[in-house]
């Protein structure tokens, strides 16, 4: 594909702009995390005049960062696995079977994305408390409650994407598996899932990020033992002060593993979304 000169200039220009746009806030974070608080509160300087690594030490004691981090990992990780598993089954049903209520199902699932979270927060909370009172299953204040809440947040889009992805896998492959003596579930596990690993990874990343960043529900549904990072980070801003430098240091620290994991999986994500979205 030959390209005219203007395209390569446009490339430099646009990508240059995007790099700046992406990097500036990241740089602000990094630079601020290496400054003492009083410098951060003062005028903006590109280079730290009093370079310090203190914020990276203080972050662990100002708030129980490690605990929140572990909570977030458990909640987001579990929600992701469950969401993806459930979405696989549902997507398989939608893509491989004709059944009554299919459209109703699809529409209902989509509509759940349209009700503002603020409002079903309160009813949901009440339902959780009542389930707890009736059955002894603690959903309010526990990680379990948050996990099942989050998994439903990512479920609709996960089903949608996976259904598209599954649809692109030729049905003849399923049939072949059935001839080999597999039931429909056997075909799913032997054929469809392996063939769509990249798509599943893509959905998993999406599900993880959805749970990782959620603030509103976590602020009401967790207590000091189960608080997640997304909410916990706000505790660097206290009654007395906003510890800007620590917020940013903590954000960098907790993002490193996520970004790393993200990058490792990026390859799959790219390939996965392709087939999923391009139904």
């Amino acid at each position, binding site marked *: 594909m030959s390209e005219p000169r203007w395209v390569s200039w446009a490339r430099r220009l646009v990508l240059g702009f995007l790099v700046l746009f992406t990097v500036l806030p990241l740089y602000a974070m990094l630079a601020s995390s290496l400054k003492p608080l009083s410098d951060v509160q003062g005028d903006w300087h590109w280079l730290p005049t009093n370079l310090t690594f203190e914020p990276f030490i203080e972050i662990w004691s100002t708030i129980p960062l490690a605990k929140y981090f572990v909570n977030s990992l458990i909640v987001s990780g579990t929600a992701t696995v469950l969401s993806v598993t459930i979405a696989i089954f549902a997507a398989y049903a939608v893509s491989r079977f004709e059944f009554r209520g299919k459209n109703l199902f699809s529409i209902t699932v989509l509509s*759940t994305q349209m009700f503002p979270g603020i409002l079903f927060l309160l009813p949901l909370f009440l339902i959780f408390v009542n389930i707890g009172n009736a059955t002894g299953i603690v959903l309010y204040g526990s990680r379990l409650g948050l996990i099942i809440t989050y998994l439903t947040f990512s*479920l609709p889009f996960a089903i*949608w994407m996976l259904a598209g992805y599954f649809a692109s896998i030729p049905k003849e492959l399923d049939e072949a598996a059935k001839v080999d003596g597999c039931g429909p579930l056997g075909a799913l596990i032997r054929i469809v899932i392996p063939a769509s690993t990249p798509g599943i990874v893509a959905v998993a990343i999406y599900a993880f990020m959805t749970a990782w960043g959620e603030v509103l529900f976590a602020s009401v549904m967790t207590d000091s033992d189960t608080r997640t990072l997304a909410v916990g980070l706000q505790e660097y801003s206290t009654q007395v002060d906003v510890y800007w430098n620590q917020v940013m240091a903590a954000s960098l620290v907790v*993002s490193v593993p996520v970004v790393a994991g993200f990058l490792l999986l990026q390859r799959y994500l790219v390939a996965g979304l392709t087939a999923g979205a391009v139904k």
Partner: protein
Amino acid sequence: MTTLTKPAPAPAPPGPGKSARARVWRGMSLPYLLLLPAVVLELLIHLVPMLVGIGMSFLKLTQFYIRNWAEAPVAGLDNYRFVLDFNAAAGRALMSSFWVTVQYTVASVALAWLLGTAGAVLMQREFRGRGGLRTLFLVPYALPMYAAVITWAFMFQRDTGMVNSILGDTLGLVGTGGDAPFWLIGDNSFWSLVIVSVWRNWPFAFLIIMAGLQNIPRDLYEAAAIDGAGWWRQFRSVTQPMLRPVNQVLFLVLFLWTFNDFNTPYVLFGESAPKEASLISIHIYQSSFKTWNFGLGSAMSVLLLLFLLLVTAVYLAVTSRRRTVV
């Protein structure tokens, strides 16, 4: 869950009579079984609370009754009448925040899509450092939301922020000192909100479109090139049509996310956003959580739901028809 994840039970041995009937029955119910976990969870977490929310919109559910909902007096359509009375302050406030939200959504989705498309299309071709750039562009998506937005709030400060430092001190595009522009209050606050939202969302658009591009068969471009189509023609006649299904999904998802966005304005501006950037979700929060008047908040939410349903239905109808034509 565990039982479902286990290897599928061996199929019943083919045979006449009872087991065949069982197989037919299973064949009929299998899709429902597969959907069951999703349905149960969506019912529990979304639909039942949503129905409760709709029910709440017909109650006078103020702080006097939240301890015991059963005693809350029925308001009938009062809550709706109240929020839709555009001659009164509350109705006008809702309407104005609705328009702000519409503008915000259009601007944010359009820009995120534009940047995503531009980035993805221009990175279609292999060049040195492409992998590194792709990595970099995805970082904003992986940062915790609070961290990302609070950093922007930090940069937008008038006296001590990086934005005014660049625009004013370095580039001289805006005034400095006493003439420096505000970004967190006043007219500019709308654009601040859009910028932050685009910063957080464009990588997602970039990713989806990049993925879509990879699926376009190379020979389509080759065929177009043989026909003498230049770069721009190829983009118009191959890339764009092939991306249409991706864009259909992408636009809808971005639209729904952005329209219901609560976190970005909440973290950027604190509990009360400037009226120029007061999104409807913030407005609902203020009129229900802040004031503990959940009947009113529910009524607004139901109206919002109806609006989004309508938009989505029209959107799907239009785009699907166009899709079959293409």
